[in-house]
């Protein structure tokens, strides 16, 4: 069964994002939400790891949280997709399991 991983802390603050990527399996999804959306930025220390993981994982960013923080799309890694709360629900439907990483 595939897993929807939720990462809600900033990668500048915790290693939750990297720890999550290390344990996510092929076909899993990783949703960056709340302060976790900073993990979608390009050009940062962790960006290469996130970009590499996007090859085998569906890495998704919660758009309302991105907007709340004034980040626009142009600053994000290319391979990530954006969803709203409905898209979040669809992710939960697609993946039977869910784990949170703080």
């Amino acid at each position, binding site marked *: 069964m*595939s*897993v929807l991983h939720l990462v809600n802390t900033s990668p500048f603050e915790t290693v939750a994002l990297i*720890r999550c990527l*290390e*344990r996510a*399996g092929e076909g899993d999804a990783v949703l960056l939400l709340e302060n976790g959306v900073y993990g979608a930025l390009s050009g940062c220390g962790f960006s290469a790891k996130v970009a590499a993981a996007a090859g085998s994982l569906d890495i998704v960013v919660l758009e309302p949280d991105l907007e709340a923080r004034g980040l626009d799309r142009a600053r994000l890694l290319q391979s990530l997709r954006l969803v709203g709360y409905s898209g979040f629900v669809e992710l939960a439907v697609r993946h*039977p*399991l869910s784990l*949170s*990483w703080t």
Partner: protein
Amino acid sequence: MPKRFVFVVRQPPYSGARNAEMLDQILAAAAFDLAVDVLFLDDGVWHLQSGQSPQNAGLRRFAPMLQTLELYDVREIAVEAESLEERALAAEKLILPVRCLARIDIPDWIAGHEIAVSCG
């Protein structure tokens, strides 16, 4: 087929009421005679360090409470081998007998459950 639960513990001991509350939740599932596994990852493995004596820090011992996992037939108590290695911990010196899983095998192992719960 009954649902298999996995509880994932990533926070170290002495994280306030959270420790007792995560154990309550794990045991609640075990009390229903369900298949319950627990996975200790990252700083969660510090729960299993032997010789913890928090009394002088004014804290309650949590390690004895954790031993009830065995009493209530929690099916598997698993730890990630890399999490132990990074912290220079040896599986045979932990307070509970554990099953060691390599990091690379964690996703498949988790995928073998119907319900996953993060305990911090």
